[in-house]
C-alpha cells in the first residue's frame, strides 16, 4: 500500500505544500526589512523553524526510545529510527543555514553560540548513533542500544546548553532573545512558519515510518 494512496495523507501533504507556498510568499513580500540586515535577516523564518523541527525530532527519538524499552514493540524502534534520520537531516540544514545567516550579520560564519554549539554536539552524537545502528551487531540489541543513546543524548541537551552559555557569556546576539519586542508583522509570519514546518515534519515522519515498516515486512517475509 502506497503511503499517499491514503487520501488523508495526500490531503495533508497538499495542505502543507500550500501553506509552505503562502509562507514563502509572506516572507518575501509582507515581512518588513530589518535595517542593516535586509534579506539576510529573512533567512531566520526558515532557519529557526528548521532548528525547532530538529530538536522536536530528537525529542521524538527520546520518547520513542523510552516507549520501546518499556513495551518492547518494534513499532517504537522504527519511530525512533525515522525521527533520528529526520532529526539529523534537519540538524545538518541548521548547521548549514546558520553560518549562511551568520556570515552577513555577525561578519563571520561560525560563532560558539550556545544554540549552534548544542546543535553541533547533538549532530556528533547522532553520527555515533548511526554508526552503532550499522555496526552494533545483533538487531535486537542494536534497537535497545539505539534507544538508550537517544535518551542519553536528549537528557544531555540542557546541560550542554547551560555549560556553553556560561562558557562564552559574551555571545548573546541570537535574535530570538528579543522576540517579545518584535512587531506583529514579524511575529505572525514567524509563528505561521513554525506551524507549517511542524506539519511538514509530521507528514515526513509518518511517511518514513511507513517505509521502514514496509522494509521490515519485506525482511521478515523474506520477500
Amino acid at each position, binding site marked *: 500500500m*502506497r*503511503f499517499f494512496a491514503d487520501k488523508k495523507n495526500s490531503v495533508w501533504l497538499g495542505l502543507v505544500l500550500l501553506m*509552505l507556498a503562502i509562507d*514563502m510568499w509572506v516572507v518575501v513580500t509582507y515581512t518588513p526589512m530589518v535595517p542593516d*540586515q*535586509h*534579506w*539576510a535577516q*529573512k*533567512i531566520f523564518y*526558515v*532557519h529557526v523553524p*528548521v532548528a525547532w523541527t530538529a530538536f522536536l525530532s530528537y525529542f521524538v527519538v527520546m520518547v520513542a526510545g523510552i516507549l520501546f524499552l518499556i513495551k518492547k514493540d518494534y513499532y517504537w524502534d522504527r519511530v525512533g529510527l525515522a525521527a533520528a534520520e529526520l532529526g539529523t*537531516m534537519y540538524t*545538518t*540544514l541548521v548547521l*548549514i*543555514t546558520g553560518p*549562511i*545567516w551568520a*556570515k*552577513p550579520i555577525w561578519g563571520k560564519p561560525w560563532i560558539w553560540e550556545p544554540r549552534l554549539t548544542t546543535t553541533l554536539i547533538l549532530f556528533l552524537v547522532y553520527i555515533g548513533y548511526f554508526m552503532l545502528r550499522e555496526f552494533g551487531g545483533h538487531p535486537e540489541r542494536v534497537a535497545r542500544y539505539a534507544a538508550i543513546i537517544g535518551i542519553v543524548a536528549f537528557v544531555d541537551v540542557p546541560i550542554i546548553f547551560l555549560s556553553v552559555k556560561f562558557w562564552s557569556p559574551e555571545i548573546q546576539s541570537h535574535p530570538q532573545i528579543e522576540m517579545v519586542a518584535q512587531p506583529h508583522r514579524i511575529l505572525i509570519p514567524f509563528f505561521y512558519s513554525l506551524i507549517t514546518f511542524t506539519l*511538514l515534519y509530521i507528514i*515526513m515522519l509518518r*511517511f*518514513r515510518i*511507513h*517505509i521502514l515498516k*514496509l*522494509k521490515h515486512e*519485506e525482511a521478515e517475509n523474506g*520477500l
Partner: protein
Amino acid sequence: MVYNFLSYFVTAVSLVFLTILGWFVYQLRQEGRIIRRRSNISPKE
C-alpha cells in the same frame, strides 16, 4: 549590498527546500521499489 544579502537568503532557502524535495523523491522511489518487488513476487507464490 542589498543584492548580496538577497543571494544569502536565496541560497539558504533553496538549500532547505531542495533537501526536503530530494528526501521526498528518495523515499518515493524506495517505496516504489519495494511495492514493485512485492507485486512481482506474489503471483509466483
